[in-house]
Each structure stands twice: as C-alpha cells, then as structure tokens.
C-alpha cells in the first residue's frame, strides 16, 4: 500500500517552494522504491509552516514543516522507520494555532483535493445546496437572514436583505456576481478559498441563483491571482460534468451556470459598481447609487453582487441551519470571520474565528508579534483604506461596530503588522499615493484630492510649515470622506487621519531644547 502525502498547491505555499518539495518527494521515493501518492491540497493557512507536508496515518494526518527540498531524504527516513524528526509537528488537527480556530467556511481548505468533486462531496460538499433545493426560495431567504450573515467584502450589508431585494425584483434576466477582486493588501482569504475549496464558492453562488431566480453567474477574479483563476475554471468544468452547473442542477428543475472573468489590474474594480462596469467591458468607473445593483445591476438587470467569503459562508448556513452559524459572534456581527494575519508577523496566515476576539489577542497572542522580533508599533486593519491602530487600541474587539466606533474598519479582515521601524509619514503618504494611482477619476475629491494629499504630506515630511499643512491635510481628508462617490476616495482618509491622530509624534518633530548660553 502506498503512503499518502499531502502538499499544498496554494500560491502562498508554491511561492515558498511547495512544488519543489513535492517533486523532490516523488523523486526520492521512486529512487528508494517506496510507493507514495502525493495529493495537492489547498493551504491550511499556517503560512509560516509552509511548505507543510502531511502524512496520512491510521490516527489521522501528521504534519511536518516548514519542509525544504534538502529535508526530503531525512523526512522519508523518519517515515520509514517511524522515528522522530526535527520538523515533525504532530497531528495536524492538534496544532494549537489550528485547533483554537472555528473553521466553518474554511473547514475543508487544506484538507481536500480542490480539483476533485468527489472529495468535496465526501467532505460534506453540496449538502447545503441539496437542502436549499428542498426548501425553495422563501425558506432559503429566511435561513440566510436569520443567520445574520453580513457582506464579507467590507461593507457588512445584511446578505439576506440583498438577496430578498433581488428575489422580489421583476425582470427577464437576473445575475449573480461574485466579487473576487481581492485587492486589499494583507488579505488573501478569497484567494485561499478559491484555490483550496473552489466548489464551495460555486455552491454558494448556485444557491444564490436558485433563491433569487438567476440562471447566470460571473466570478470576477483579479488578474494578479492566476492560480485562483485556474482553480475556479477547473472546478466549474468539473461541477458542470457532475450535474451541479447547467440545466436541472442536481436533478432539480433549476438551471444555473457561471463563468470566470479576469480583471486587468484596477484596484477600484473591487468596488461593486466599478466591477459591474468592468464586467460589461467598460472602464471601471464607479456608478452613483441609487439605483442599487439589486435593482439595476449587471447589464441593467437585478443582480446579487457579493464577496467570495459571503458566498462561501452560505453552504454551511444551509447545511447546518441559520442558528448554528448565528450562535457564533457578538452584537450584530454574527458567525465567523476568516481573519488574515500579514506583514511583519511571526505566525502569519488565516485564522477563522467568531467575531469578538480582540486585536491584541490576534496580533500578540495568535500572531506571535513581529518576525523581526522588534516591538509591534502599528497595525493596519482592513486593507489600504483601513485605519492604523496603535497598541493603545489593542483591546478593540473584532466586530464591525466596535471598529467603526474607533474610526476604523474591519474591511475584508486583513491585519498588516508593522514594527517600530515604521515611519507613519510614509504610510500616510502611501495611502494618498495609492488612491491617486487607483482612482477611477469620476469624482473630484478622490481624483484631485489624493494628488494634493500626496503633495501636502510631502511638504510635511520636508518640514515645510508643518502645522499649517497638517490642518490642510485634515481638511482635505474631510472633503474626500464626505464628498467622494465611493469608498476609495471616501475611506483613504482613514489610514491618513489615523496616522495623524495616533502617531502624531512622527509628523511633528519634537521641540529642540535650546542649549543654555555659555
């Protein structure tokens, strides 16, 4: 009998050598005449341990990591003789970092073969859709609403209400659009789930389609994610072959099919109306709302547009019931959030947990502080449009409202950690610069404001009339915040103002003490 090994094919694992390790394992095993079978999974999300190699045993999977090509011979020795190995981490499921998570959405990610529909079904896949088909539209809407699920893209709009609006709209065609334009730095949950459990996204979108009466779906994936594009395309073909996309899904009377569309490097296309314009083949100019996409979306038709993680949460909710999901969380933030720990962090990766965990627990305890070993000084939560928080705010619970109350946002759940070498003037300048590069140009506060913002912060950095220019930046931020058409111009002030507020000492040089005259 051959030994079953699991090595991730996730882009994050491949970037640190997973392909080379898999190849080395194959070669070394062949040379020794040992029969092995390597299954390329998604990532478990423990990126500091990638490339992670897991071995199937009667007691469950045993993990080794981070494995390099040169570790392969000793690893095979240890497996053959059942002796200890320096990289042995024990049972994967018992690794504390993984064990303390609540994996509802990411339950299968890193476990199954993302190319295998059978593997997906063997691990509970399509149970949610089967129940959805038996429930019908109204009952599905009741479940999704009762789960308390809010849009995971960042805006946090209740998913059930959005779906209901589209379900009630009358039109000859309706669309389901999945926003996979995950452009925020520090976020990679969409990428991971598309690469590691693509059928889950398809199942979520299909469920949405049968609920609102849409027969066509598009998933708009950014071009920076070629591995995710490949994985989704392969899964769509497999789902079609298995009768889960196309006419009469799963033997029902419903029809739904979908296709992948690839972005072209515009950050603003993550904004839903810009994304719709781009899908229609135009410049990604933001649309004024109303009308809402739910009424007037893709090609002018009623459209459900949700983030990857919103669709990915749906199968669990339907399979296990709304209550099972809503039992997790705090306040109006129900369920779990796949949080992404990134940047200068020792234990970076994906940590799915119920809302309510504090920022300090996430960064210091779970993340283990910085990998440089220097003190954590600032964390940016929620991508390039999210606020910079100092340690003083580490008691903030991870919750939409709690972050908003402190002039921040959780966005798509990314946390980027900076050590004490960070210059917050540079980060504030970058926020404006990024907005200037990526602005769609439709509204003046964003298009012009961001460029003026860069110039003014540069004056501050040069020491040119610092207090006057600081006041000017604050004023400009208010104009952008209240005058911009979408979140790009409207939220760029968050990182800028938070840097000014919490890290003032970086902007205003300490007064030089005059030397007493001799």
């Amino acid at each position, binding site marked *: 009998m051959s030994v079953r090994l699991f090595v991730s094919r996730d*882009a*994050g694992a*491949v*970037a*640190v050598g997973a392909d080379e390790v898999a190849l080395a394992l194959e070669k070394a095993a062949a040379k020794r005449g040992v029969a092995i079978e390597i299954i390329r999974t998604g990532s478990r999300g423990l*990126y*500091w341990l*990638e490339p992670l190699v897991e071995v199937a045993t009667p007691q469950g999977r045993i993990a080794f990591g981070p494995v390099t090509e040169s570790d392969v011979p000793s690893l095979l020795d240890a497996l053959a003789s059942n002796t200890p190995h320096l990289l042995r981490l024990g049972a994967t499921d018992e690794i504390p970092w993984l064990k303390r998570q609540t994996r509802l959405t990411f339950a299968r990610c890193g476990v199954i073969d993302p190319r295998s529909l059978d593997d997906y079904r063997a691990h509970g896949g399509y149970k949610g859709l089967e129940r959805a088909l038996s429930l019908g539209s109204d009952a599905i809407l009741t479940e999704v609403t009762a789960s308390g699920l809010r849009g995971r893209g960042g805006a946090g709009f209740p998913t059930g209400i959005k779906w209901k609006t589209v379900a009630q709209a009358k039109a000859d065609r309706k669309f389901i659009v999945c926003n996979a334009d*995950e*452009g*925020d*730095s*520090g*976020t*990679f949950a969409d*990428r991971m789930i598309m690469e590691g459990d693509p059928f889950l996204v398809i199942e979520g979108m299909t469920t949405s389609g049968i609920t609102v009466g849409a027969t066509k779906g598009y998933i708009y994936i950014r*071009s*920076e*994610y*070629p591995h995710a594009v490949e994985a989704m395309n392969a899964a769509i073909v497999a789902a079609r072959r298995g009768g889960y996309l196309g006419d009469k899904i799963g033997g029902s009377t419903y029809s739904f099919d979908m296709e992948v*569309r*690839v*972005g*072209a*490097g*515009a*950050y603003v296309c993550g904004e839903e109306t810009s994304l719709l314009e*781009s*899908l*229609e*083949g*135009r*410049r*990604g100019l933001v649309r004024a709302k109303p009308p809402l996409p739910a009424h007037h979306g893709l*090609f002018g038709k009623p459209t459900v547009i949700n983030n990857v993680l919103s669709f990915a949460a749906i199968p669990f909710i339907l399979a296990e019931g709304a209550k099972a999901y809503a039992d997790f969380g705090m306040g109006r933030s129900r369920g779990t959030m796949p949080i*992404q*720990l*990134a*940047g*200068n*962090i020792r234990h*970076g*990766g*994906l940590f799915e947990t119920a809302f309510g965990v504090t920022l300090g627990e996430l960064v210091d305890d779970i993340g283990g502080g910085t*990998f440089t070993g220097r003190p954590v000084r600032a964390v*940016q939560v929620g991508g*390039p449009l999210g606020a910079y928080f100092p340690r003083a705010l580490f008691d903030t619970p991870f919750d939409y409202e709690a972050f908003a109350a402190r002039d921040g946002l959780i966005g798509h759940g*990314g946390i*980027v*950690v*900076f*050590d004490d070498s*960070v210059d917050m003037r540079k*980060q504030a300048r*970058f926020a404006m610069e*990024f907005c200037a*590069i*990526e602005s*769609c140009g439709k509204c003046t506060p964003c298009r012009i404001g961001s460029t003026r913002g860069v110039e003014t912060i540069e004056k501050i950095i040069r020491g040119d009339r610092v207090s006057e220019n600081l006041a000017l930046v604050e004023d400009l931020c208010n104009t952008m915040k209240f005058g911009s058409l979408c979140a790009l111009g409207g939220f760029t002030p968050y990182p800028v103002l938070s840097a000014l507020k919490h890290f003032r000492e970086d902007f205003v040089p300490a007064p030089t003490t005059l030397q007493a005259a001799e």
Partner: protein
Amino acid sequence: MTAVYEPWDETRGAEIIAEHANREGATLVILHALQEAFGYVPEAAIPMVAQALNLSRAEVHGVFTFYHDFRHKPAGRHVLKLCRAEACQAAGGDALAARAEARLGVSLGHTTADDRVTLEPIYCLGLCATAPSAMLDGRLVGRLDEKRLDALVAEAQR
C-alpha cells in the same frame, strides 16, 4: 520561463477578436486574449476591436488605457514584478525595491536599455503572510530577502 509571443499579424488578430466578440461585455476578454497572444495590444488592433463590438475607437482606447495590465508595446524578455503594497512594505519591501532598481539600473515601471528586464510594481499578490513577495514571468516567490532578490535579478538578466 520566458513567454513566447507571436509577432503581430492582422489576420490572426481578427481571428482572436472574432472568437470572443459574441460574449457579453467582451472588451476586456478580447484585450486579454490579444495581449496573451502578442505580448501587448498593438495600436492597429484597437479599431478592429471597436468595429467588431460596434463601439467607437475612443471607447476601446478608453478601456485599454484604464487598466494597468494592458501594454501598448512589448515588455522586456523577462518581467519582474515586486509587490509594493503595505504588507510587503511592513516586511522590508521598500529596501528590496530600491535594491532591485539599483541592480537593474531602472526605476519601477521601466525596461532595461537592453530590453531584457521590465521591472514593475504590483499592488498585492495576496502572499501577505509570506511577505515580501515577487513574481518573475508568472512564477511566484515569497519570503524575499536580499539573497533571493539578487538571484531573481540575475535570473532575469540572463
């Protein structure tokens, strides 16, 4: 591995356009397909796309120029993209970008005089837990440090 592109050919261009012209919202799909075949979107292709989709030349030009991905001339033989977003900045990406610029003698967004290497910024490869990261001709590299960067630069210059 260096990507191999076909030289621009009008008949081949027309074939590619015709292949996708009937899809809904086809403009980006066609521009991607043209760039995949030729390595860039030749100026001559713009009016052809416009005609196939019943759009004005200005509209197609507008789409082409809006998106960072589309090139109006071929890139260097190798394209080295360095992630310049916050997670990579936090992990020492600024110094590595400056090092790459110095080694190659070009600033980000430019191609070396010998047309060997195009050095570009990219805003997030989604490898934020193994930052800083880069992509050389489609191959991803994480946990970049000076040594790994130098190796990448040397490989690109070959």
